[in-house]
């Protein structure tokens, strides 16, 4: 079973602060990590490999420092990592086309796994878009998958419904956070990851003249101004003060 996992390096959104004079989010100097749900995708790939053997290739389109993050994925259990550096201008179209070309270059695959969305921009486009580009079937929002030799059966979380879907291979699957608990690699695995192949593929070798279809023309910060009044001493007193304040604010019923 050959599995490709698409993983994105994101900034940790919980660390974002807003520059009050420019009203823009400050994105520099923030912890970068692999988007949580993409780790669930890799964990699922590892579980499938444990049962069916095969190879797991991780692809990331990102900045050069994403190599360090890809090493974490190799330590978890991916066999090979590929970094495609961001071109100067990119959007979802550019990124999904680069992933598509990389997938074609890899050639053999049965399952492509992605997170349902990345935790920074949370658009969830990339998975189904790649499936559309490749014209293969797609199973989105999978909360459990059961991989058999010639087909996969997945339970999809559609909110008010659960849909059980079966597909032959190749198939693209996007997973939700509930599907599993990503493993933490051991020290041995972390050290071992250094010997696994981590390649960088040049954009021009994949696709030439790729232009974005959409442009981000502005990013406006949304600051959340809250009173942050915390009562922490005598409990009865705290409750009393809270209720008085809520009454004053006119929000009690």
């Amino acid at each position, binding site marked *: 079973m050959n599995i490709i996992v698409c993983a994105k390096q994101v*900034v940790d959104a*919980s660390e*974002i602060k807003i520059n009050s004079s420019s009203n*823009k989010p400050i994105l520099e100097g923030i912890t970068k990590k692999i988007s949580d749900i993409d780790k669930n995708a890799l964990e699922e790939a590892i579980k499938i490999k444990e049962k069916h053997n095969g190879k797991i290739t991780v692809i990331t389109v990102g900045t050069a420092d994403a190599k360090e993050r890809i090493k974490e994925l190799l330590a978890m259990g991916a066999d090979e990592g590929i970094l495609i550096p961001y071109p100067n201008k990119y*959007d*979802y*179209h550019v990124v999904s086309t680069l992933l598509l070309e990389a997938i074609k270059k890899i050639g053999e695959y049965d399952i492509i796994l992605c997170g*349902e969305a990345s935790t920074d*921009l*949370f*658009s*969830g*486009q*990339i998975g*189904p*878009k790649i*499936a*559309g*580009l490749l014209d293969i*079937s*797609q199973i*989105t929002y999978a909360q459990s998958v059961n991989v058999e030799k010639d087909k996969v059966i997945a339970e999809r979380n559609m*909110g*008010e419904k*659960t*849909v*059980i*879907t*079966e*597909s*032959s291979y190749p*198939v693209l699957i996007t997973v*939700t*956070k509930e599907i599993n608990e990503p493993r933490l690699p051991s020290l041995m695995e972390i050290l071992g990851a250094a010997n696994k192949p981590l390649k960088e593929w040049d954009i021009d070798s994949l696709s030439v003249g790729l232009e974005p*279809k*959409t*442009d981000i*023309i*502005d*990013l*406006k*910060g949304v600051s*959340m101004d*809250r*009173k942050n*009044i*915390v*009562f*922490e001493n005598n*409990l*009865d007193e*705290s*409750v009393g003060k*809270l*209720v008085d304040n*809520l*009454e004053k604010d006119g*929000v*009690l*019923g």
Partner: protein
Amino acid sequence: MVLIYSDNKKLTLELLSKGSELAKDLGNKSTALIIGKNDDVLANEYISYGADNVFIAETDIKSFKAEEYAEILEKVIKETDKNTILIGSNKNGKELASRLAGKLNAGCIVDCTNIYLKDNKITTERVVYSGNAIAVEQFNSKPSILTISSKVFEPLKKDVNRKGDIVKKKIETEKSSSKILKIKEAVTEDVNVEDADIIVSCGRGFKNKEDIKLANELADVLKGKTIGCSRPIAADLKWMSEDHWIGLSGHKVKPKLYIATGISGQIQHIAGMRDSGVIVAINKDPDALIFKSADYGIVGDLYEVLPKLTLAIKDKMS
């Protein structure tokens, strides 16, 4: 030309309002798309809510599958020469729009909360970075595919005097290599957190499912009477149905009062409730992130705080 589609009727009406306005600004017409059985009643209703025309793509397909629906849309777009596609941003709509964007090699922006023309280009706004920013994006290409979240736009007033053409066509699709084995309706408790005025919300601080009654009792004395929850309670522990789930991949709420009890305040949860009027946090950990997003906080064990708070509010209100 603007094509409008959602498998949810209410969302379609909201899309028709914005879609017909956008069509006017672009100097052309809007077409509502119905996929499924021939349905003149629904078609006329869409016209009375603002659609200039309706296209009924007749198909025998019974359940939504993105592969087949994307193929239908691709054929309808070719047939009707549309280049601006508005799709309702529910789970089906998002995977449909993204797949369609792949098939058409088109730009796509999901979860738009605003759409307008700027420099004659279709311009959108959407919430990113868990609510910390709004991205303003612009299409520089056609076709343009957009998905619009629910409750962003108000439907137009129904006007039965509006006239429009209804075109019907049978659309054949290739059989996709996936098949639906079973559809299970999730157990819901018919709560609507999105419309609630006051929400008491529960997180991992609750030790047992039965203890949720402490939150219920507080909700009962408040007139809101609605309880919500964070991701673990609905998705992992399944102590509450998913219609209670508030957060980035759950529901987005804006009550006038939001009381978060035993919720640590992960950014994904904050993204779902940050537009609330007054936010109260109850948590025993003084360093819990939730206090940073709250107007008032009580540091304390919810098992002690909730009964006292319920009693105090009852006294105040009687």
